C-alpha cells in the first residue's frame, strides 16, 4: 500500500550540530524585524490608529485618479486608495480626522455623499470608522493580550514540564512573534485586530509544536538515562519529525484555501498564518531545541523521580 511520507522513517539527522547556526540566523532575523518595527514601522490599520476605511464597488472599472482628486477635494486629508479583488473594488482609507469623534462621522458622511452623488451606481460595501478613544483602547488590550499569552504559556509549560522547557518555549515564541512582526512590515500588510488574532494563533500553533517535541524529550529522558542530552534531543526531533511535518502540512493545506479564496482582512490573516506555520515549525527544531540543550545540559532531571504530572497519564 502506498504511503505519502515526506521524510523516511528512522531518520538520524543531527539537528543539534546546526544549533549555533539556527540560533544565529534566528537572532539576525529577529533583530532585523525589531529594527523594521521601529523603522519604517508597522502599517497600522484603523483598529489601532483610528481613521476611516471604506470599501466601495464602482459601476464600471474604478477611475482611481477621478476618485482620488474628488475625495482629496473634500479637505479630509490625503486619501489612500487601494485596489483589491476585481478592478471595480476600491478601498479608501482616510487618516483619523482631527477634532474629536464627530469629525470622523462627518467625514464618513462626506465621502458617502460624494461617492453616491459623483459616482452614481457605486455600491458602498463596508464602512469602518474608529475614533481616538476606541483605537487607543484596542491597542492597549491587544498588547495586554500578547503579554498575557506569553506569561500564560511560560507558566503552563514550566508547570507541566520543567522550567528549562518553559524558558525555551517562551524565548522561541518571542523570536517567532518578532519575525512575524517583521513579516508585517516587509509585506506592508495592515496591522489590525485580526492581525493580532493571527499572531496569537501562530503562538498557539508554535507552542503546540514545541509541546510535542518537548514531550518526546521528556519521555526519552526517562527512557535513556545515560544518553547525552544532545543525542537525546536529536533522537526526539527525529522521532517526531514525521508528525511535525504532517501536521504542519495539513494545517497549511487548510489555510491555503482561505489565502487563495478570501479577500481583504481574512486573506491577509491566512497569509500571515501560512508564514507562521513555517516559522513555528522550524523554530521548534532550530531554536527551542538548542535552547533546551544549552539550559538543560547536566541540569535536567533524569528518570528516577519523574514529575508527578508525568504519572497522571491514563
Amino acid at each position, binding site marked *: *500500500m502506498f*504511503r505519502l*511520507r515526506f521524510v523516511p522513517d528512522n531518520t538520524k539527522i543531527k539537528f543539534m550540530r546546526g544549533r549555533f547556526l539556527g540560533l544565529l540566523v534566528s537572532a539576525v532575523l529577529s533583530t532585523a524585524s525589531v529594527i523594521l518595527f521601529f523603522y519604517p514601522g508597522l502599517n497600522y490599520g484603523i483598529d489601532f490608529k483610528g481613521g476611516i476605511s471604506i*470599501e466601495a*464597488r464602482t459601476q464600471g472599472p474604478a477611475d482611481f485618479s477621478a476618485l482620488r482628486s474628488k475625495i482629496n477635494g473634500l479637505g479630509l486629508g490625503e486619501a489612500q486608495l487601494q485596489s483589491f479583488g476585481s478592478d471595480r473594488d476600491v478601498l479608501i482609507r482616510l487618516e483619523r480626522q482631527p477634532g*474629536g469623534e*464627530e469629525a*470622523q*462621522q462627518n467625514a464618513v458622511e462626506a465621502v458617502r455623499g460624494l461617492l453616491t452623488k459623483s459616482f452614481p451606481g457605486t*455600491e458602498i*460595501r*463596508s*464602512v*469602518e*470608522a*474608529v*475614533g481616538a*478613544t476606541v483605537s487607543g483602547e*484596542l491597542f492597549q488590550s*491587544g498588547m*495586554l*493580550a500578547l503579554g*498575557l*499569552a506569553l506569561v500564560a*504559556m511560560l507558566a*503552563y509549560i514550566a508547570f*507541566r514540564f520543567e522550567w528549562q522547557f518553559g524558558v525555551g518555549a517562551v524565548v522561541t515564541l518571542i523570536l517567532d512573534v518578532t519575525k512575524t512582526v517583521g513579516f508585517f512590515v516587509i509585506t506592508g500588510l495592515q496591522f489590525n*485586530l*485580526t492581525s493580532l*488574532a493571527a499572531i*496569537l*494563533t501562530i503562538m*498557539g500553533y508554535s507552542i*503546540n509544536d514545541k*509541546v*510535542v517535541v518537548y*514531550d*518526546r524529550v521528556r519521555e526519552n529522558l526517562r527512557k535513556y538515562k545515560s544518553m547525552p542530552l544532545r543525542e537525546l534531543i536529536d533522537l526526539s526531533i527525529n*522521532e*517526531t519529525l514525521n*508528525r511535525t511535518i*504532517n*501536521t504542519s502540512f*495539513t*494545517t497549511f*493545506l*487548510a*489555510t*491555503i*484555501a*482561505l489565502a487563495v*479564496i*478570501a*479577500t481583504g*482582512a*481574512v486573506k491577509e*490573516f*491566512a497569509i500571515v*498564518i501560512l508564514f507562521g506555520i513555517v516559522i513555528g515549525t522550524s523554530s521548534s527544531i532550530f531554536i527551542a531545541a538548542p535552547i533546551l540543550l544549552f539550559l538543560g545540559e547536566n541540569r535536567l532531571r533524569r528518570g528516577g523521580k519523574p514529575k508527578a504530572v508525568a504519572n497522571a*497519564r491514563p
Partner: protein
Amino acid sequence: MMYFARWQVVLILAVLTLGTIFAIPNLLPSRINQTIPSWLPHPTVSLGLDLQGGSYLLLQADSESLVHERLQTVVDDFRAALRTARVGYSGIGIQGHAAVVKLLDPTKLDSVRPALEAAAKDLDFSAAPDGTVSAALNDQALQTMVRTAMTNSIEVVRRRVDATGTVEPVIQLQGADRILLELPGLSDPEQVKALMGKTAKMTFRFVDESVTQEQLQTGNVPPTDDLLPLASAPVGGERPAYAVQKRVMVSGENLKSASPTKDQNGEWVVSFSFDSTGGNRFCDATKTNVGHLFAIVLDNKVISAPVIRDAICGGSGQISGNFTAQSATELAVLLNSGALPVQLKIIEERTVGPDLGADSIRAGVYACLIGFVLVTVYMVLAYGLFGIFADIALLFNLILTMAILSVFGATLTLPGIAGMLLTLGMSVDANVLINERIREETKLGRSPVAALDAGFRRAFGTIFDANATTIIKMFILYALGTGPVKGFAVTITIGILTSMFTAIVFVRWLISLWLRRRRPKALRV
C-alpha cells in the same frame, strides 16, 4: 483500551446523532427550514454582522456634559435663591465638579443656608467662613447619575431604533457609559446615526420681548434668558437669534405623541398632542399671553417662534419650521421616543453591506470545502485506512462544532470561519500524533492491539498539553478581543474541545470495530 462497553457505544452514537440533528438545519435553505415542525430542534447559527450585513455602532455618553448640566441647574437655583433672599453674591459658576458662589456678606449665610442646601440636594454641600459656598458632585453621586442616565438612554435608543424598523437589533450597555448597537441588515446607518446624534430635549418657552435688538446682537441678555439661534437659517439670510426665557412653560416630557403631517398649505409640519398635564399648562399659559411670542426649542435651538393668536386648549398643536418629509418624520420619531438624558457620540462604526456579507459567506464555504478536501485526501495518502478513520472524525468534528455553535446561540463571524478552517488542521493533529505513535509501537514489534493501545495512551498526554495551550490563548483572545475576533476564539475553542472527542474517542471506537471484524495480524498505518 480497545474495548467499549455497550453504554459507551450508546453514548458515542447519541452524541453524534444529536450533533447531526442540531447541525443539519444550518445547511438547509431557510425556506425548507421553516417547514420543520416546531417540536423538532432547529436552531441555526446566528451570523455576525460581517456575514449577514449590518451596522455596528458604539456610542459614548458625554458624562461631562451631564455633570455640567446638573451643576448648571444648581447654579441657577443658587442664583434664584440668593435673589429672592436679596443677598449679594459674586463669582457664581462651575469649578471642576462643583457649583460655587461667594456671598458678599458672610454673615447672611445662615439666613439663606436652607434654601441653598435644598438647591444642592444629593451634592456635598459646604460653606466656608469667608462666605464661599460650594456644592460638589462626589464620585458616588456621579456614578449613580451616569448609571441612571444610561439606563434611561438605552430605553430611548431602543425606541428610536425600533422606529427605523430594524429587525432584531442588539442594544447593550457596555462599560459604565457606552451603548453598543448592532443593527442587522442596515447598510446605510445614516438615519440611525442622525437619530442618535440628537438628545431631543424639547421645551416650549416664552420669548423675552423686552430684550432689544442691540442686546441680541451683543449677546448681553438677562441671566434669566437664554440666547438661542434658530434651527434652520432662512435661505441666504443670517441666522436670527432669540432671547428665550429660561423658565419652561411646557416640556417635551408632557408630549403624548407626535406625527409628521401636511398643513393646509401643503407644508410639512409635525403635529403633536400633550398629555393632560401638558395640555392644561399650555392652555393656561397661552390664555394669558395672547399676542405674545413663544418659542419651540429643541436641543437649544429654536425650531419656530410663533405668535400666540388664541388660547390653545385642545391639548394638541402643530410645529412648523421649514420641514421636509424626512426632517418632519425624524422630529416626530425623536419626540415620540423621548429625550436622551445625555448626549451620545458615535466613537466606532463598522458597517458591512449585505452583498459583501454574502460574498464572504460564499468565500468561506468554498474555502472550508476545499480545505476539507485537501486535508482529507492528504490524510488518506499519509495513513491509508487510519487516515480514513481520521477523516470521518474530522467530518464529525465540523458537524459537532456547528451543532454546539447553534445550540448555544453563538455567532459565526468571518474570522470564525477562518477559525473553523484552522481547527481542521489542528484537530487532525491529534490523529497524526496517534497514528505516528501506533506506527512506532508497531515497529517495536508489538501486536496490533498492544500497539493501538499504547498509541492512544501515549499520544493523549501530548494532545492534551498541545490543546490546553491553544485553549488558554483563545480565552485570552476572547477576553480582550472585540466582536468578530471573539468569534474566532469561540470557534477554535469549540473545535478543539470537540476534536478531543472525535479524534480520540470516536476514532478509537471505529478502530475497535474494525479490529473485531478483521482481526488483522499486523497493522499497516
